[in-house]
């Protein structure tokens, strides 16, 4: 088996609140955290269900991203028994996964709107926030931003793990961040993809957008003492269609198979799959089809988390991984919130009630626009 990467600490801010415990309690209780209506101006926003940060705690201003990133990092450091003054971060790699980050451009635009002609997109590109975080934390290792839409922070985890496995760095801070904007909301609205999140359900109609941030500390598991370790990963590009993967599931099955191969284990060893589970008709059907190709008709338990926190796009890899393993550490695998009735076309049900978490290998899948598919394999506890 190839060397695994220890997840040393995790922190998260989501629509469930600040910290993993707020999220875990919602998942244990089977409660979502969405609200009706956007906290920023969009003409069609009134009836849209969104998972947004608490606006009282995280007001919508230029400092919003910094605030949620800082809170996530502080929790991750605390989770690892470290603090901001620790030297752990100084030579770590910093890899941020984000899908665009235009919310602050909109804030600037709206602020300048009353004066002269405002500057559209008066910000410097997705890498600017990463550069600022590195400077703030005194990080001297590699610093980069991965922008692969909904797989961004899953791919950030993959790249960080690869750099550690190849000994290019000894540790990494991975951040997934998504702050919703009118731009993003309008785009998905124009594609008619927005709906209440019902992953794998017979009545599923589309996705429910969310914003969240998670920070994860990774290092080589030299002592073999990691409770959660990332042991395999794969990413591939399905060139079938830019916004949807081929419904035959072959590409997704292949990326899952490659992740298993990277981990050095077989499909039979997977205890549970954290599915991508967007709640859109084709995506969920494709994912079930792909799982059948890999696992056969007897699928392992699988669950989707987007009913709790929404589809957090580029942040999803880090946020859902953190949510999933924090739930496992609390003793349970969360149910798929929003699922109610089996789709006759799928003939398959995700977990609809929590089950006891046990040590084992777990797979986490993330798929995105641009045919970008990522599968990660983790070991939880002593196997």
């Amino acid at each position, binding site marked *: 088996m190839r060397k695994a990467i220890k997840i040393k600490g995790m922190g998260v801010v989501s629509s469930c609140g600040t910290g993993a415990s707020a999220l875990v309690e919602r998942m244990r209780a089977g409660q979502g955290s969405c609200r009706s209506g956007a906290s920023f*101006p*969009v*003409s*069609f*926003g009134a009836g849209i269900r969104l998972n947004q940060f608490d606006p009282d705690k995280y007001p919508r201003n230029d400092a919003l991203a910094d605030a949620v990133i800082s809170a996530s990092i502080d929790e991750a450091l605390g989770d690892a028994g470290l603090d901001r003054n620790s030297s752990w971060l100084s030579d770590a790699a910093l890899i941020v996964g984000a*899908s*665009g980050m*235009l919310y602050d*451009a*909109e804030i600037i*635009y*709206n602020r300048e709107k009353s004066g002269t002609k405002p*500057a*559209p*997109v*008066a910000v*410097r*590109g*997705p*890498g600017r926030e*990463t*550069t600022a975080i*590195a*400077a703030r934390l005194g990080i001297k290792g*590699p*610093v*980069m*931003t*991965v*922008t*692969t*839409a909904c*797989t*961004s922070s899953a*791919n950030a985890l993959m*790249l960080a793990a*690869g*750099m550690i496995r*190849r000994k290019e760095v000894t540790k990494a801070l991975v951040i997934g961040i998504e702050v919703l904007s*009118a*731009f993003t*909301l*309008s*785009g998905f*609205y*124009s*594609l008619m993809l927005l709906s209440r999140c019902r992953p794998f359900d017979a009545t599923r109609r589309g996705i429910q957008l969310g914003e969240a941030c998670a920070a994860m500390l990774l290092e080589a598991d030299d002592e073999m003492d990691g409770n959660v370790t990332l042991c395999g990963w*794969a*990413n*591939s*590009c399905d*060139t079938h269609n*830019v916004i949807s993967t081929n419904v035959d599931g072959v*590409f997704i099955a292949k990326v899952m198979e490659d992740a298993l191969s990277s981990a050095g284990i077989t499909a039979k060893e997977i205890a549970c799959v954290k599915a991508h589970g967007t709640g859109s008709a084709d995506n969920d059907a494709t994912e079930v089809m792909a799982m059948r190709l890999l696992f056969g008709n007897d699928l392992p338990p699988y669950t989707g988390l987007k009913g709790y926190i929404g589809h957090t796009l*580029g942040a999803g890899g880090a946020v859902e991984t953190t949510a999933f393993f924090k739930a496992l550490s609390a003793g349970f695998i969360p149910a798929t919130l929003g699922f109610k009735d089996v789709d006759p076309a799928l003939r398959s049900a995700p977990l609809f009630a929590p089950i006891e978490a046990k040590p084992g290998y777990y797979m986490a899948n993330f798929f*995105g*626009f*641009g*045919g*970008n598919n990522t599968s990660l394999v983790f070991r939880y506890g002593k196997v």
Partner: protein
Amino acid sequence: MTGNTVYILSAAAIGPSSDTAREQRRLLTEDPHTADLSALVKELTGEESRRIGHFAQLAVACSRLALNRFKKTITHMTPLYLATGLGEVQNTLSVFEQVMGTGDSLCSPYGFVNAVSSTTAFHIAKAASLNGKNVTISQEELSFEWAIKLAASDVESGEAEYALVGGADESSQPRQEHMRRIRLNDDQVMGQGSGFLLFGRNADNAAGEVIDVQWFDSSGEEKNAWVLKIARLVERYRKRTDRVILLPGFRLEQGDIAALYSRITFMPVNNYLNFCGCFHTASAFGIASVFDTPHERDTLYLHVNNNASGRTMAVLIRAFAG
């Protein structure tokens, strides 16, 4: 680097005037006009490209050109790394104006999909029939340097037989806003272009090799230490027959160049920015365009660039004679 040698099997660079070869390159004295690349994309891919933006055209055409120049088939699981500072900025501006500048907050679905960060790498992969790892890196002026590092690591470690890496950025209007976005001075030329390199493990017909990609802290007390470290890096790999040429990135200041000169002797400068202008991934054009013409003897190229936060990156490659 310690594993497999990372050979540069082919390269291509497209400048702002859709120039793809040395004889087509033009010295820029002012901002170049944006050239229509539709015909070039059609010629190289056989596909119409009306529905993709100029940025995507730059990336698709350049990647295809680099692969065509290799003249062999590469495995469809070849990883692809695309670097960009701003991505589809023209299209993003257009969608942004649709959403923010009108009362209904609605935008064109095509416009939105084209603005999604993974779309251009998808089009490159589709045009090249690549289904392997597909990653877009955006880290302002060091985007391409990190992409090279990742692609070279895939080949060096044996994870991949080949790796395709490139960078692209387009300019936008109004000029003042674009210059503000990429933090350029008014007297600099606002450029655009692309560059792609195909890496591989096999030396057959290789045009060069990647020697090292290193990063340095160049802030505070480390302000001058990076120069010495780069000088040591060059000396370590310099053979007597090697010519060393400096490729200065657009954030490198005259003082930085003078400091490098004080430590590294016999180092002419290749001011590639004169042909492509300034943009976040100009280094992709600069590094790829050194392979525009054959080299009479082995030549070391040292590309150095800074970012605004005290970070310096050096890319050292060797172009082979012949």
